[in-house]
């Protein structure tokens, strides 16, 4: 780019350069004539020769060299320089021409070598797989950008582009005396992968400060496209989650099966004893001692079943919730932040309408987050088949009479069929392919533990709203 600009500017000025050089040659010739042949100024001819060769080209350089030689020849002649033989004047002119030609040729070589090395650098930068640019962090001027950068980010015209870069890189304007991330040019100040909003690509953006050719301190930025690895990472994560989900499902099935088996034994035994007693009584062939024993056995077996249930209770109790005064709005906002990417993945927009000045509630933060997260997930899943424009989820908080905070999650999905509404909160009831049927049941348990209630209502314009209430701190 720099090279192209140079060539363009040179093309417009080449004619002027030649004219100026010729004028310079004339000037030198006149001066040389005035000073006489003993005080020769012929070395000054190298100046116009240099100008034309460097700025216009080899041909023009040779032309000016010849003109300069001729000018010297006539100056020398007019100045009355006598030689012992007339041939020596021609010889002297030839030597001059030779020196000018050698000088010109060397200049051409030098220029070519410089151009080549510049071109090599630019070619590498242009073909690089990473987007590279150099910009001024103060005024935002773009000093250099390779092809890939221009393609990915556009030309970032003026300071507007740099404002965007600043936002992207979270770079604040330098405070006077503070060189910030630019202070040490040897370290990259890495910025975590920033999203390119135009093409849906993920880029790892790295910036460091370098000294520009004119001595200014500028920023060198490289952006590497890491979309593929991001995508692979995401697929990996999804697979891991699915695996974990399956493992959980298996674990729950295992626990349920084990419990059923454990409780089945004493229960069956208790039934057997009872039936045994009934049979004896019916047959009329019985004695009190045996019957008392049988009934005692039956109650003992019942107690055994009870003990198993007690053990399960104690196991559950070990995870006693930790209730402290918390802000409901901050819990909701925190959970929403966690769910943003999940929602974005399904093109669902979430709107949060928090009530202002909400009093605090006594609750286990993690548990309430679980409830909200579950309701949000359900809402997102319910809208999977809805048109994209309709996919919005509204979360509201408000104070329900004096003692309750009311939280609602409203979706515009498929709604709840009337015949399923009764089973909604039953454990192990699910309409999802890989669901456990425990989500809403657990949610309801959590909310009820906090003294609140969880319920669902259909919306007038489709979809459903899940509500739950939490007791205010002042009321509990």
């Amino acid at each position, binding site marked *: 780019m720099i090279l192209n600009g140079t060539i363009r500017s040179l093309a417009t000025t080449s004619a002027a350069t030649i004219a100026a050089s010729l004028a310079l040659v004339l000037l030198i010739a006149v001066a040389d004539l005035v000073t006489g042949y003993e005080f020769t100024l012929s070395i000054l001819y190298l100046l116009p020769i240099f100008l034309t060769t460097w700025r216009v080209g080899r041909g023009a350089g040779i032309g000016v060299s010849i003109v300069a030689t001729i000018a010297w020849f006539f100056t020398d002649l007019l100045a009355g320089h006598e030689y012992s033989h007339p041939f020596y004047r021609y010889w002297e002119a030839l030597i001059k021409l030779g020196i000018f030609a050698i000088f010109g040729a060397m200049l051409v070589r030098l220029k070519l070598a410089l151009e080549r090395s510049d071109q090599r650098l630019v070619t590498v930068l242009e073909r690089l797989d990473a987007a590279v640019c150099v910009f001024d962090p103060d005024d935002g001027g773009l000093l250099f950008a390779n092809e890939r950068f221009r393609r990915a980010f556009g030309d970032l015209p003026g300071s507007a582009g740099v404002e965007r870069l600043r936002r992207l890189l979270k770079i604040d304007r330098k405070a006077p005396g503070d060189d910030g991330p630019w202070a040490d040019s040897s370290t990259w100040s890495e910025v975590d992968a920033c999203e390119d909003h135009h093409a849906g690509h993920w880029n790892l953006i790295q910036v460091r400060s370098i000294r520009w050719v004119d001595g200014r301190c500028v920023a060198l930025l490289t952006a590497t496209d890491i979309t593929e690895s991001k995508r692979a990472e995401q697929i990996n994560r999804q697979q891991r989650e699915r695996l974990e989900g399956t493992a959980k499902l298996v674990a729950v099935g295992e626990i349920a*099966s084990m419990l059923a088996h454990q409780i*089945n*034994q004493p229960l*069956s*035994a208790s*039934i057997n004893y009872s*039936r045994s007693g009934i*049979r004896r009584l019916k047959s009329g062939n019985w004695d009190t001692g045996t019957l008392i024993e049988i009934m005692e*056995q039956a109650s003992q*077996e019942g107690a055994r079943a009870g003990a198993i249930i007690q053990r399960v209770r104690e196991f559950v109790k070990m995870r006693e919730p930790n209730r402290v005064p918390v802000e409901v709005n901050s819990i909701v906002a925190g959970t929403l932040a966690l769910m943003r990417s999940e929602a974005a993945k399904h093109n669902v927009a979430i709107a949060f309408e928090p009530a202002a000045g909400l009093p605090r509630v006594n609750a286990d933060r993690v548990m309430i987050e679980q409830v909200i997260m579950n309701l949000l997930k359900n809402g997102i899943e319910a809208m999977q088949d809805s048109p994209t424009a309709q996919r919005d989820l509204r979360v509201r908080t408000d104070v329900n009479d004096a003692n309750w905070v009311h939280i609602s999650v409203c979706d515009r999905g498929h709604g709840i069929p009337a015949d399923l509404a009764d089973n909604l909160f039953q454990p192990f009831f699910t309409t999802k392919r890989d669901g456990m049927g425990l989500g809403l049941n657990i949610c309801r348990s959590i909310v009820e533990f906090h003294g609140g209630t969880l319920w669902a209502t259909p919306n007038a314009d489709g979809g459903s709203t899940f509500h739950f209430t939490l007791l205010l701190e002042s009321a509990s």
Partner: protein
Amino acid sequence: MTTPVVHVVDDDEGFRNSLRSLLESCDLAVQTYADAEEFLTRYVSDRPGCLLLDVRMPKMSGLQLQDELQKRQIRVPLVFITAHGGVAMAVAAVRRGALDFIEKPFDDEALIGLIRDALDKDAQDRQTTERQIDLGARLASLSARERDVLDRVVDGRLNKIIADELGISVKTVEFHRKRIMEKLRARTVAELVNLVVQHRVSARKA
């Protein structure tokens, strides 16, 4: 006839004892065993009975015990008791010759019905076995010549032809026939034929 015994093999003591109480209330004799090994060492086949067997047990499972019984040629009617999730195994057990299975917790009437069926089957099996053993002994008491005559009688040949084939007189054939009828305790020729065919069929089965 000796009273039948219901053998119960279950690793859960409470359940085992409750089953004993229930079955005793129906005037059934009950023997309980904590595991398959105990059953194999303590079981004696001299009394009619049936076996109630838990499918899931530590060490040797109900199905393994079933295999072991078949290997040892102990023929006792089997009823499997299954808990949660054991139905598939119980079905496999029935395919391999168990009489039936019942799921815990069960209806006592259903269980007692099954036990009665099993005991009936055992009684029948024992009767058949006895009869076969008896018939075998009676057949064994025949002399070689009497067996020759019997084979031909069963094939439906006339005395004259039998006499020709064996190179003896018709009178001798008639004498042998009379002895055969006595030894096998058959009143008519039809009964005789029936007995022999029955024996052949059961011999082939074994």
